[in-house]
């Protein structure tokens, strides 16, 4: 199997710690792009970008409208915008209604990424307190995407990953001690 082209990570309450664990493992010999959809309050807060930049060899930037998706870049969804992906592999922004009370919504980006990337998509759903992300994981799964969910037992807030594990089959349950398995999947295409 070919390695993945894109990883979309969705996280809400309590997910930052896991993101900080994942990022140092991303190496520039991997031809992969990352989109990070975090539920957060204000876009004017640039500390998140600074914090993440210190943990990775990849470039970290907030999405600007029509940004082309390039390898070795981590794109952060801006507060108050949904992020979608176009067929020409550019990112588009959308300020339409909140989904699951969230904007950005993890479902919106998962679904859109599934539509464009199919089998070369890896979705990772992390800790959180609401039901966002599950519908998008199902869409990704239907299109052959690889589904990673944080082990609810190890998540700071278990509700969001728990919803996922209850409602669909998961390819990998991620916890603090199996990051190497995740990286093997990334390098080899799948498990």
């Amino acid at each position, binding site marked *: 199997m070919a390695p993945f082209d894109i990883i979309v990570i969705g996280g809400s309450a309590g997910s930052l710690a896991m993101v900080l664990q994942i990022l140092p493992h991303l190496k520039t010999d991997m031809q992969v792009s990352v989109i990070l959809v975090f539920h957060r309050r204000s876009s004017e807060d640039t500390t998140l970008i600074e914090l993440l930049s210190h943990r990775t060899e990849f470039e970290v930037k907030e999405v600007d409208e029509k940004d082309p998706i390039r390898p070795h870049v981590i794109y952060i969804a801006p507060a108050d915008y949904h992020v979608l992906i*176009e067929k020409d592999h550019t990112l*588009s922004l959308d300020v339409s209604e909140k989904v699951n009370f969230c904007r950005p919504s993890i479902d*919106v980006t998962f679904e859109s990424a599934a*539509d464009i990337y199919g089998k070369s998509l890896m979705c990772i759903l992390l800790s959180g307190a609401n039901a966002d992300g599950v519908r998008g994981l199902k869409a990704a799964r239907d299109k052959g995407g690889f589904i990673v969910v944080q082990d609810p037992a190890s998540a700071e807030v278990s509700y969001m990953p728990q919803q996922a594990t209850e409602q669909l089959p998961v390819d990998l349950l991620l916890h603090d001690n199996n990051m190497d398995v995740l990286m093997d999947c990334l390098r080899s295409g799948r498990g």
Partner: protein
Amino acid sequence: MNSEALLDLSDGEIEIVLNDLVEVHGYDFMNYSRASLKRRINRLVANDKFLSFAEFRYRLRNDDVYFKRFVEEITVNVTEMFRDTQFYRTLREEILPVLATSPLVRIWHAGCSTGEEVYSMAILLQEAQLLHKSLLYATDINPAVLEKVRAGIFPMNQMKRYSENYILSGGKNDFSSYYIAQYNAAKFDEQLGKKIILANHNLVSDSSFNEFQLILCRNVMIYFDKELQERALKLFDDSLEPLGFLALGSKETLKFSSISHKYRQVANKEKIWRKIK
């Protein structure tokens, strides 16, 4: 709700719908960004419980009332008062003092949606004592939203947040002095609405209709492809007086457009450009 059972239009079916809209109704969405458009059409198809693509297509082609609903649902009408408070602070502190030197201030809100931004601007102008000599042109592709702008009535449950936004944008008055609360609605002062001129205008097909000192088009062109963005920007350029201002949304830019060399971004992080050539 069992989402798997719902109809989901393919890319090819979306293209057929877009062709129908041009052919039957004269509305051209061909140059809209597909990802968002596809999502909204599929959402509408699901909400309205169509069982087949053929049924949806027939209805859209033949039922003018349903076509109207389609336009209302497909165009994004989410907006708020004083969204991006720093942007409004910049308008207040840096742009309005420049406009104040004009005998008549003409402002165009392109893609005004339900009018929250227009009323925010009217409040700024009133506080700068410019409203009496200003005209605010508010245009949208969707005729239904223009009625809402005319009414100047917004949901009461938003007022707490709008009031916070207003204060963060540099507002000094009691925000509630601008509206009358009636049950779940906040009816804004008619003095604010008097200077608003409404028109149906489509950035895809219509042309320039006046000259302005300030044009605001925020989070509208994010739904357009590059070609249509370019068309809209040329239209704005044709509609701006020399030294006029163009304001875009917080994630939009003029940088890669053909008119960029004629503009200079104002000296802070806000997305406001001044026409210098």
